[in-house]
């Protein structure tokens, strides 16, 4: 019988300093030792572990269409992520997954897509952007709205700036407070959303970020005329098992690790605790 708690061995092939801010973020490129693939869907998560330290559920920040490696963008916070930040290319980590439902990208074909991210919350949205870019003709317009506390906390900055320049998507970056040399939007992400006013017409909006931000983004999306079923979010809680057994990640009767992390606002609005 397949043991769901037994991790695979993976190797870090590259580490990139993503955001040097107060809570630093690094992006790790990882390949499975045996050459296998996780066969994940955009929006799914994996449990990264370091033997002797512990495990942590991290969303996969790369699209399955990018087959050379898996990417994880990790903020240095707890014991596992701190240990991970000490890792260098060539180090091995353990990996199990993928977990969760992922985004229903197939249902979204032919539609316009708006992603609204805040801080490290852009990581789970990145595979959507990548998947759309890799199958550009399957989707309508792509709008990326993304903000962080300061320019030092913005992830994937080079990528997004390049994307903005090349034009396959419209990109709107923001930071929370004025900074010299910043000529884009200053203010919170939900406010930036109201500035940009994406049209709800044939559109899906996906948001991820701090809980407070998600709540205001949803409120503003509804104001812009989006319906509950057009709004998606991806969530996070403390997790241990990844398979809906250890109990702690529940929101109402749903477990984020198993029934989520992607929820449509249609489902979410009826759940207690949200």
């Amino acid at each position, binding site marked *: 019988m397949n043991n769901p708690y037994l991790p695979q061995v993976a190797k870090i092939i590259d580490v990139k300093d993503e955001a040097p801010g107060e809570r630093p973020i690094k992006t790790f490129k990882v390949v499975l030792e045996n050459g296998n693939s996780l066969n994940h869907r955009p929006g799914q998560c994996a449990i990264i572990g370091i*033997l*002797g330290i512990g495990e942590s559920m991290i969303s996969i920040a790369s699209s399955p269409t990018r087959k050379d490696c898996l990417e994880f963008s990790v903020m240095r916070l707890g014991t596992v992520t701190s240990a991970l930040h000490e890792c260098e290319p060539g180090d091995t980590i353990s990996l199990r997954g993928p977990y969760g439902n992922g985004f229903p990208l197939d249902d979204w074909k032919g539609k316009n897509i708006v992603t609204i991210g805040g801080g490290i919350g852009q990581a789970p949205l990145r595979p959507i952007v990548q998947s759309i870019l890799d199958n550009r003709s399957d989707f309508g317009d792509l709008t990326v709205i993304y903000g962080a506390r300061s320019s030092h906390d913005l992830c994937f900055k080079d990528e997004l700036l390049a994307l903005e320049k090349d034009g396959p998507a419209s990109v709107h970056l923001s930071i929370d407070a004025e900074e010299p040399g910043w000529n884009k939007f200053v203010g919170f992400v939900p406010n930036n959303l109201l500035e940009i006013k994406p049209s709800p017409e044939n559109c899906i909006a996906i948001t991820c970020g701090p809980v407070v931000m998600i709540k205001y983004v949803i409120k503003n999306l509804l104001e812009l005329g989006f319906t509950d079923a057009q709004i998606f979010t991806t969530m996070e809680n403390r997790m241990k098992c990844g398979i809906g057994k250890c109990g702690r990640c529940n929101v109402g009767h749903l477990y984020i690790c198993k029934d989520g992390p992607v929820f449509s606002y249609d489902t979410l609005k009826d759940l207690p605790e949200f």
Partner: protein
Amino acid sequence: MTTYTLPKDKLPEFLSALSDYEIWAPVKKGPATLFDRLDDLKDVDLDLENQPVISKKAIFPQNEPLFSYDRKGTVTETDLNAVKNTIVFGIRPCDARSFTLLDPVFEGDVPDPYYRARRSKTALLGIACNDPFVNCFCTSIGGSPFGREGLDLLFIDCGDLFTLEVITETGKEITGKASSLLSPATAESSEQIAQAATDKIKRHIDLTGLPEKLASLFEHPVWKEFASKCIGCGICTYSCPTCYCFDMQDETTLKQGRRVRIWDSCMFPEYTLHASGHNPRATRTERFRNRIYHKFKFNMDNFHSYSCVGCGRCISLCPVNIDLIDYLSRVKETE
């Protein structure tokens, strides 16, 4: 149904006839009666006066090493084939039933190999409750002091002898090993004793409509009131036969390490604490409410059963008189 009788003084012989099994039974440890693995058959103490804690650990141990590893990162899986055929003797019908409620959790979409290994090799030999305890309310929640659900064999205390009811094939196999000690029971049924036992249960609650009621009360101030006296220990969850939440931790020495799963309790704040410091259930009220909702609403949504067998241990052991029966009745009356 096949029934046998076993003279009470032949119980040690009966158990020694089952020596190829690992036997768990209630054991007196100091003043407390606990379920434990038997090293010596003489240690068995059915102690019908006291409600033993905690039988779930025979199948769902408090610590379970998932795998071990060395410094090089070589992982060695725990050998589940080494799990011995096991008998849990003297388990109460409610506790036996609890495993049938844990099964869907640990089987589910992704079956749990550790639980399955023990569960499939464990026979449950129950003792009927002739004398239910003060907070027993199994009859209100689908069980009974003579419930057969989950059991392989039911022992009924009939004075000088036990009547044994064979419930499953495994039960039949077990009685087969000790057949020389057993005599076929006469037609006389145990129904009268069972009825008398059921009548002794004094605490009742009508749970009809509870999940629907809970659905409308999530934000109600009553939860703050209920939780106000909770001191936040884990006694209710650890002693509960249907609580299964666990934590996973790495434990290392200089040379080696292991990943262990350990019972956890939703009543502890660090259970849900994020690494960022944010806690989605930061207060006693939220944690207490989650426990009740999990047992009486969420589990119903997910598995179509309550996560409670009515053993009453959380009520008996609570240091501050948090009384589940009382609270649930008040929930039902709350508008």
